[in-house]
């Protein structure tokens, strides 16, 4: 079935470096994607979203890139900080926009 998946389960980066978290999706009809951050013991927190009519969107220290040709999106975090340590999920809207389909998640570890 359709799914959203992540390439790497764990990513370790040095504080101050840039982080890149990747995600592949399989539903060619997906037109809205969201990145969530989940800290231990908390619910997912919205980071940034992007619609399929865009290929790049920037927020504060974060950038999402969307490549519809290969059905891939990435989350870039600039100058990674210890507070960025968390699990990051990509998700897309399916079922007519009524529910999110999540990938497994990538654990980002920031080393001092």
């Amino acid at each position: 079935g359709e799914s959203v998946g992540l390439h790497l389960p764990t990513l370790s980066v040095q504080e101050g470096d840039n982080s890149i978290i990747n995600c592949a999706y399989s539903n060619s009809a997906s037109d809205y994607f969201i990145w969530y951050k989940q800290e231990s013991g908390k619910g997912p927190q919205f980071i940034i979203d992007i619609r399929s009519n865009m290929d790049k969107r920037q927020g504060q220290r974060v950038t999402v890139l969307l490549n519809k040709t290969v059905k891939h999106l990435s989350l870039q975090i600039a100058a990674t900080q210890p507070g960025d340590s968390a699990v990051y999920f990509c998700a897309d809207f399916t079922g007519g926009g009524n529910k999110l389909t999540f990938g497994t998640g990538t654990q980002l570890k920031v080393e001092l």
Partner: protein
Amino acid sequence: GAGVSQSPSNKVTEKGKDVELRCDPISGHTALYWYRQSLGQGLEFLIYFQGNSAPDKSGLPSDRFSAERTGGSVSTLTIQRTQQEDSAVYLCASSFVAGNEQFFGPGTRLTVL
């Protein structure tokens, strides 16, 4: 309230017992969602409400699971005759309307012994 709240935060129960989980969405949000997250896994969609009706129940894993929403606000997820495989974190989210950004609560951690 300022965000989505869920209660209890933790629930330990014995196999075969029924449990009820509660979600208070953000005031004014018409859409409400339930997800389940097993240890180290992504979120699994369970059910979605628009107002008090549930147009999409496709994610409920069995007939032991049910949910209702009253007054277009509070929702309860009920699991009957709990099994050990029901152990997970149950997350609730709400959005202003379906298809908009979903705001998540902190979840209820359910442990079935």
